[in-house]
């Protein structure tokens, strides 16, 4: 059973004060997220990521379409007991302490009273806020608030967690910790759906990603599939300071750095290069397939979308 099935969710806002005109924030979106995967929802700012998340959370009503979460209709209130949500740039009741806030959310999520305190302490420990649990949130930094946000999202041990830009506002250590936490959630069998525009995070974490731009889905797939749509090239690295003439003759792009030479060649020329290196008695270090990075894929998709939009105008 898929964790999330988005069945043509669409959102059009009416904008303007006197003369209202429609502005489409999200074109009908079809998307399936499998159980137990980390799914990245990528797109530049204003692409429609947050709108999609808000619709799934019931904060914004779709113009049309529906969704199923954990096999049930997404408007079913019982579904919400099994999902966690971290909004973008979260802001919480700043008159509460971290402990009081999590206690409150625990109450609203139906965490049984006898387990609540223990669970709150456990989560505070997990997100690294145990020492400041009695401090009012108004004294918290942006990064600390983000940790509180993550804490409240996982507090009730949900099966599915939605994170909207979870790395935003975090320093490199904080980002690393969030990445570890997401991997831990996956390890526990939970599904993680997160939106981001930081591609390196998505590349490092996600099983699959979807790319959205100007409210339209531009591509979906496993990160490996998207990034291995290789250009049919390999990078050969060997020890040396000079490029043998026979390799130069193959038209390879070569770079010499210290005592290493890197050459990017066509895959079909790989054997010829290895033979040449043997003949020249050079020590081969590595042969690495040249992969398209997720960033390159992303940029390409957006560029193509811009071109299509431009040609249809």
């Amino acid at each position: 059973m898929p964790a999330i099935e988005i069945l043509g969710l669409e959102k059009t806002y009416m904008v303007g004060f006197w003369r209202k005109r429609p502005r489409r924030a999200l074109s009908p979106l079809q998307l399936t997220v499998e159980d137990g995967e980390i799914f990245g929802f990528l797109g530049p700012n204003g692409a429609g990521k947050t709108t999609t998340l808000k619709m799934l959370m019931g904060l914004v009503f779709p113009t049309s379409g529906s969704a199923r979460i954990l096999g049930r209709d997404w408007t079913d209130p019982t579904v919400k007991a099994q999902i966690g949500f971290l909004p973008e740039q979260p802001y919480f009741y700043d008159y509460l302490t971290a402990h009081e806030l999590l206690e409150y959310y625990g109450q609203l999520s139906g965490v049984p009273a006898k387990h609540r305190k223990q669970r709150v302490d456990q989560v505070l420990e997990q997100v690294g806020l145990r020492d400041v649990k009695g401090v009012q949130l108004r004294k918290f930094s942006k990064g600390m608030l983000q940790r509180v946000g993550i804490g409240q999202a996982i507090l009730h041990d949900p099966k599915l967690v939605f994170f909207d830009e979870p790395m935003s506002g975090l320093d490199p250590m904080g980002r690393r910790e969030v990445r570890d936490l997401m991997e831990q959630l996956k390890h526990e069998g939970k599904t993680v759906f997160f939106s981001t525009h930081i591609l390196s995070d998505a590349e490092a974490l996600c099983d699959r990603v979807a790319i959205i731009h100007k409210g339209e889905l531009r591509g979906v797939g496993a990160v490996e599939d998207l990034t291995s749509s290789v250009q049919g090239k390999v990078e050969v690295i060997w020890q040396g300071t000079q490029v043998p003439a026979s390799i130069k003759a193959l038209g390879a792009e070569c770079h010499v750095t210290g005592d290493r030479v890197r050459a990017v060649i066509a895959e079909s020329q790989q054997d010829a290069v290895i033979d040449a290196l043997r003949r020249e008695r050079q020590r081969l270090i590595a042969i690495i397939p040249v992969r398209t990075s997720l960033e390159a894929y992303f940029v390409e998709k957006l560029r193509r979308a811009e071109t299509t939009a431009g040609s249809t105008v």
Partner: protein
Amino acid sequence: MNTRIAYIASNTFREAVRDRVLYNLIAFALLLSGAAILVGQISIEIEKLVVINLGLTAVSLFGVVIAIFIGIGLVSKEIEKRTLYTVLSRPVRRWEFIVGKFFGLAGTLVVNAFFMAVGVFAALFYVSHKFVRADALILVALYFIILEFLIICSLALLFSSFSSPLLSAVFAFSLFVIGSFAEDLRNFAGMTHGLTRWLATGAAYLVPNFSAFNVISSIAHEQPVAGQLIVHNTLYALFYAIMALSGAVLIFENRDLK
């Protein structure tokens, strides 16, 4: 009560009691009750009358200011600050949120009214050196003031569910002022004709009739309050508050939280 409503109400109460502005307003109201003693001393033989009049008016006015001040931000501030997102993404229904907020604010106002009333009774004891049976009537006036608060709370919530805090404050305060003269508006409607009569009558019955809740002056003169008025005001306040709350729920249930 639904437990989620109780949790939201208790958090709303906690928010209010941690707000410094609330204490400033209560202190100011108590100060006014204290000042009534001084004013009373200037007016020979009518100290008690002045203390009851000024003291209860302070309880009512400051309570209304607190109700509007806190009530107008109950929903709109939560949307603006996005604190609502993490609440409504849980198994909390939107109507539960509105009703919880209402009870939280109403609870805050009842507790405030209690402390301010203690101030009034203390001032009264200071000038009279004893309590008499007629002083119990002050409790009826306080009960009416609390009913008034319930209406104001529900109206503030209603406005807060669709407009900004500033506009909500303007709407709620305007309705309070107009409602305080509702009897005059009804009398005016009786004197007009045609379309004006229809409009004035409609407006007179639409705005909350706060003038019926103001028994401060008659109580200060130790005039009893009819039991019928107590029943009427109770039913009227409950009906009005439920209608305004229903309106707030209806708007909020269909609102996109952008």
